[in-house]
């Protein structure tokens, strides 16, 4: 254990944290170190972005927070988890919603059944679960598509279904792994706005992995810039602007200013790599 002699004040401040990672590393069996040591503290209700080059371990960090992957060393604390995740142990968290890069929907069943899945696995009674699934679908604007099959939806709509499924358990923490990377720009902007609106309404803790500077600045309160593999924190930039953000923020001078700062922080991560 890394923690020793924690003062009561620190202990109190820790409780306001949704996620904290200390000295977390991840090494694969082939000896490649993918991550760390990596420290991260996310307050409850905060929207942060993890930004870094491909292969820097940002997705690995997200999978570790979700409990889908075990850290090699270090401690992971996630609110609602009882206790902490020990190195080498996988402990899936129930207070967590996860949105993958692909929509990751089950093609063999309807949109409603896809959204209901987490509740079904938790053995929530059917009527209740259906009502909550429909509510989650309504919150992403897909109330009319509950009976459609995934293949009948566009890429953006599938991503919304995936988001609804992550929200259906009403998790404290929403982890998003480059969710909009495969979408066209217009759809992406619309989903960015919808995500911000959802976040303002629900005030979930969001950890958003992306490799888009513009997306990270637009969405998040904090942009955590990571180095190339093994990923560490290069910079932690707070984005302060008038809330709620909207399209006018995207075209403001402050926005391009932040983008320039974040890009500058990101640049060293790409040094030594080919321009591709």
């Amino acid at each position, binding site marked *: 254990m890394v923690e020793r002699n924690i003062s009561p004040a620190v202990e109190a401040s820790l409780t306001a944290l949704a996620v904290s990672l200390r000295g977390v590393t991840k090494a694969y069996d082939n000896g490649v170190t993918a991550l760390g040591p990596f420290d991260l503290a996310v307050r409850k209700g905060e929207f942060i972005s993890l930004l870094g080059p491909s292969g820097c371990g940002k997705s690995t960090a997200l*999978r570790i927070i*979700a*409990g*889908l992957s075990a850290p090699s060393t270090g401690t992971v604390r996630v609110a609602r988890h009882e206790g902490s995740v020990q190195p080498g142990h*996988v402990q*899936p*968290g*129930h207070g*967590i919603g*996860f949105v*993958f890069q*692909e929509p*990751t929907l*089950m*093609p*063999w*069943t309807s949109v409603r059944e896809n959204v209901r*899945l*987490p509740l*079904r*696995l*938790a053995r929530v009674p059917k009527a209740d679960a259906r009502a909550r699934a429909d509510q989650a679908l309504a919150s992403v604007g897909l109330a009319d598509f509950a009976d459609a*099959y*995934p*293949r009948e939806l566009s890429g953006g709509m599938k991503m919304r279904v995936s988001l609804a499924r992550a929200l259906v*358990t009403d998790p404290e923490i929403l982890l998003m792994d480059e969710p909009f990377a495969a979408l066209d720009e217009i759809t992406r902007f619309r989903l960015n706005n919808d995500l911000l609106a959802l976040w303002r309404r629900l005030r979930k803790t969001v950890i958003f992995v992306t490799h888009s500077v513009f997306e990270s600045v637009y969405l998040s309160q904090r942009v955590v810039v990571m180095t190339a593999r093994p990923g560490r924190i290069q910079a932690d930039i707070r984005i302060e602007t008038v809330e709620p953000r909207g399209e006018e923020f995207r075209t403001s001078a402050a926005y391009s200013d932040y983008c320039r700062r974040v890009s500058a922080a990101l640049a060293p991560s790409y040094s030594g790599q080919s321009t591709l």
Partner: protein
Amino acid sequence: MSAQAPIIAGSSRAQRAMRFVLPVVVFAAGLVAWELVVRLKGIPPYVLPAPSVIVLTLIRDWAVLSQSLATTLLTTLEGFLAASIGGIALALLFNQSKWVEYSLFPYAVVLQVTPVIAIAPLLLIYLEQQTAVVVCAFIVAFFPVLSNTTLGLNSVDRNLAGLFQLYGASPQQTLRFLKLPAALPYILGGLRIAGGLSLIGAVVAEIAAGTAGAGSGLAYRIAESGYRLNIPRMFAALLLLSLAGIVIYGVLALVSHLVLRRWHESALGKEN
């Protein structure tokens, strides 16, 4: 895309019609040529019966042949059911435990690659005849079900598996809600192959049993008619076997299409 759609639809409709018409034309032409050759050359029916004679034999011998058809179909059905249940169950077992898979898979392969015609006489010695015939059909048909189901169970989307893990799904829930549905297209593909193969297995075993002097399936009729130089009846029985194979394939393909039509690419291609 939308502007081209009518043209594509028009040409594909003509193409689809031709896909039905052309084989029928070829078949009819072949029959006419066959009939003509037999009549003009005066070939006796015990050398080569004309198609008309075969059809007449089919009608005249219907009482015997239909009985044999029922026997063969029953054997095929039993072998097919055993192969389906056995193949899927074994694949599930393999999926649950790597050790079981490592221990048993080589023997499944051995059973598959050993020609069933060589196993049949042995089985007929140790087993009651009807059981032996069903076991032969099972042996031939179960491997495609096993290997396809195994492939399907291993083809689960990695992220979906992660999702199930995230929500703490039990092994039973993962099997029921994720693995089996994901494997369904593969399982159905395996069953489609197994249907035809169980007919082959049944026929092979019947022939092996028939030479031992027992049995009443279609294959036995063929062997028996061969000894009696009743060539038209051989052809009639062969025709029935062939039709049975086509019907079995058609039924399984239809079932597969109906089950998958709402979501799987293989079934969607036909509609779009």
